[in-house]
């Protein structure tokens, strides 16, 4: 509990301290300003007086007492707090309505306010009070006479502010162009243009906007800033500057005074706004020019190697590596920071005798710094350091030259072992002199020398892939593999499919039997012939139709019709069986003619069945 209280107390203490520090900071920024809407007024027509006290919101209502020529009443306060980039600011504005009592020129005196024991006094304000006629609040800018009459030129004007009237050649100095606007509607403000012969000008930065009191009037100010520098000595006129914008003003219509609309509801400002009572007209504002004297840089004390840099600069240098192999590159980075003219800031030179080959540096530039990155290569392994680099500039603030020097950076160059095969060849363009002098080495290029031997001299012929042997070489393995595959599959089927195997061997056995039958006829062996013939047909039909060979008789031959055997073949088979049966069971004298008929029938049956039944 005590710990908690201590912590809370500490937080409160810090908060209090911060609050106090803020207040202390703000205490130094107290300021009292008095401003009016317009410093021209009409008797009886009220206008606004604002008394702004910046730095606090706690100021009580100041008592204006008596103001000569004016009656006043308090209209109320307005407070404002703003926090920009963590910096807090606050203000209070007390508004008063002032009514002129008589015509003439009056001075609204400065007001005194006491705050924390200190007296703050505002600037007095001059007022012109006229007796007659309304003040035209808005008018066309083109009506020059009318605008001047109504003090238009005091309500909007342009100011050119050079930072210096006497500068050194090459010295950068700021130029501001300010557009003051009081109670005039302005839009489409363009970037200003200005004459700057003899000067080199940069681009304008983004314009800033703020309010400023001038001549007792509260102005909205648009400020354009840029930097310029004189190119060469002489007296030159800077300006005039000109800015273009569009002014918004009320349309000059006859409707207000038209009898039909007179006094009606359509005559109000609200309807004027809604139905386009305002229009913009392009306008431009000019300033006067200023004479600027550009003086030359002093010749005395000008250091060697001065490149024309004017300003105030600091330099730093670093290297990518402090230990390298001979021939390897090092990146030297030189950074120059400060304020001044960076266009004349150049890379400090290492010098010809630095022991390094130097290449063109890469340059990057920002608003307040310029960075150079230079690749350097040690020309020999005897190099021990990157020599000190110096940068000189002219400081216009103290009117003298200054030199900043970065000390030498030690480097270790590791020598390479001598390897003649890896030694680079240098053409005539890269002579020894040019290498030693530290310049960029230019390697030559040309064709490689001719070949001493003719190589494999041979008759010009077509490549092997166009030769017929190539196609044969491709074809043979293909056929070999394909036929092996077919045979292998056929064998596998023969082993697994008995019906197919019997059908395949039926014809082979039939041919063999035909041969034997022919031999039997030739020998006149009748008994053997018929015995063999009937057995051969039974075997053939049994194998062909996957039936038991012993069961093949004349009576079941007609059943072969179901297997697609034609009638004429069946008749031939029946005839064959009849002849054989008669011959076997009715023995006759052996005659060649008697054996020929069954032989022919057998051949015919086999031939026809092989053709018709697959």
């Amino acid at each position, binding site marked *: 509990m005590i710990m908690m209280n201590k912590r809370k107390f500490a937080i409160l203490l810090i908060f209090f301290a911060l609050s106090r520090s803020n207040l202390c900071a703000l205490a130094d920024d107290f300021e009292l300003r008095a401003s009016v809407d317009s410093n021209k007024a009409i008797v009886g027509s009220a206008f606004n007086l604002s008394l702004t006290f910046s730095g606090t919101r706690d100021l009580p209502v100041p008592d204006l007492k008596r103001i000569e020529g004016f009656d006043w009443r308090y209209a109320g306060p307005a407070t404002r707090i703003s926090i920009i980039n963590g910096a807090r600011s606050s203000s209070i504005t007390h508004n008063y309505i002032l009514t002129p009592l008589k015509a003439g020129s009056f001075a609204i005196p400065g007001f005194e306010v006491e705050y924390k024991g200190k007296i703050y006094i505002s600037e007095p304000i001059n007022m012109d009070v006229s007796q007659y006629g309304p003040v035209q609040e808005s008018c066309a800018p083109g009506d020059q006479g009318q605008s001047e009459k109504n003090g238009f030129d005091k309500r909007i004007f342009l100011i050119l502010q050079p930072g210096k009237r006497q500068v050194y050649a090459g010295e950068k100095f700021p130029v501001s162009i300010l557009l003051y606007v009081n109670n005039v509607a302005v839009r489409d403000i363009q970037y200003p243009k200005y004459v700057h012969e003899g000067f080199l000008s940069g681009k304008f930065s983004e314009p800033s906007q703020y309010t400023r009191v001038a001549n007792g009037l509260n102005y909205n100010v648009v400020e354009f800033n840029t930097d310029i520098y004189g190119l060469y000595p002489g007296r030159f006129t800077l300006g005039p500057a000109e800015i273009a914008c569009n002014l918004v003003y009320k349309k000059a219509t006859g409707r207000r005074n038209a009898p039909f609309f007179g006094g009606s509801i359509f005559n109000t400002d609200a309807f004027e706004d809604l139905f386009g009572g305002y229009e913009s007209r392009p306008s431009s504002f000019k300033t006067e020019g200023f004479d600027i004297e550009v003086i030359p840089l002093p010749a005395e004390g000008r250091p060697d190697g001065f490149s024309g840099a004017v300003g105030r600069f600091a330099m730093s240098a670093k290297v990518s590596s402090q230990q390298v192999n001979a021939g390897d590159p090092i990146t030297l980075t030189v950074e120059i920071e400060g304020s001044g003219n960076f266009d004349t800031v150049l890379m400090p030179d290492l010098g010809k005798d630095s022991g390094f080959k130097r290449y063109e540096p890469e340059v990057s530039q920002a608003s307040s710094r310029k960075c150079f990155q230079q690749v350097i290569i040690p020309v020999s392994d005897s190099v021990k350091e990157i020599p000190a680099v110096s940068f000189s500039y002219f400081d216009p603030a103290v009117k003298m030259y200054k030199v900043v020097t970065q000390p030498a950076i030690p480097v270790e160059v590791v020598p390479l072992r001598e390897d003649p095969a890896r030694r680079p060849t240098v053409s005539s363009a890269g002579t020894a002199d040019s290498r030693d002098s530290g310049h960029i080495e230019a390697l030559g*290029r*040309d*064709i*490689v*020398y*001719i*070949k*001493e*031997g*003719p*190589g*494999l*001299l*041979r*008759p*010009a012929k077509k*490549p*092997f*892939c166009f030769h017929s042997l*190539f196609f044969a*070489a*491709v074809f043979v*393995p*293909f056929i*070999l*593999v394909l036929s*092996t*595959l077919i045979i*292998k599959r056929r064998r596998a089927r023969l082993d697994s499919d008995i019906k197919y195997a019997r059908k395949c061997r039926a014809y082979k056995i039939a041919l063999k039997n035909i041969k034997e039958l022919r031999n039997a006829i030739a020998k006149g062996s009748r008994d053997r012939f018929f015995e063999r013939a009937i057995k051969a047909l039974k075997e053939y039909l049994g194998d062909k139709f996957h039936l038991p060979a012993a069961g093949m008789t004349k009576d079941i031959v007609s059943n072969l019709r179901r297997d697609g055997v034609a009638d004429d073949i069946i008749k031939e088979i029946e005839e064959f069986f009849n002849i054989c049966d008669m011959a076997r069971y009715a023995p006759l004298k052996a005659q060649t003619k008697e054996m020929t008929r069954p032989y022919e029938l057998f051949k015919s049956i086999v031939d026809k069945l092989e053709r018709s039944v697959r």
Partner: protein
Amino acid sequence: MKIKYILVVFFLQALSMRAYAADFAVERELYIKSNIDYAHGDYGQAISGYNEILDRGLESGALYYNLGNAYFKNNDLGRAIANYLRALRLMPRDPDLISNIEYARSLVRNNIRTRHLNPFMSLALRLSTRLTLDAATYIVISLYYLSALAALVIIIKGRGRGYLIYLELLASVLLAVFCIVFYFTLKENYLDKRAVVVQEELEARFEPFDTATVHFLLDAGQEVAPIGCGNEWVRIKRPDGRQGWVKAAGIEKV
């Protein structure tokens, strides 16, 4: 008996090679003489010598290379590149040749070389540029026989053993890759007709007439593809696809 037969074959082979080499002694002498001419800066004489060997029906990568060098030194960039390209067919991995052809191409004005391939095809193309057509053919044939042999063993043995399957797979994949390489080599060296412009500011016209409108100009050394022939005129295509008719004498086919 078999050993005796093999020895006889080798002996005959050696004899034939000896005779083969001995037959080219004259050409070898001519080659060396041309080299000497080249070394003395007599490039015209060197070109004649090298061309004479070619006219005798002989060729070699070194011969085309030296001829290309001689043309180069003789300020004939077009013919130099044409001969380098011929040499490239016979010795595609020769570093001197690659260096020379790159350098010669870098000197060609307005050289257009465009080719867009997917990564696999560009790898195949890169492989193909490292091989002669004969080498690619022998590799393909060898892989083909290896694959066929493995397939035969697998078929005969029935169910193949593990290593045979892997061997077959490996051989098949390599065969497929080298078939593509072979195709690219064949395409680069023979199927794609190539020619080199040998004339400065050769006019390519819309039609094969002297009066036809000029379509574009070609510089010596630019590589084109002859796609059609007319009477004294050749229709060519630039690598960027533009086509035109040029005088046949203005280009040299590779």
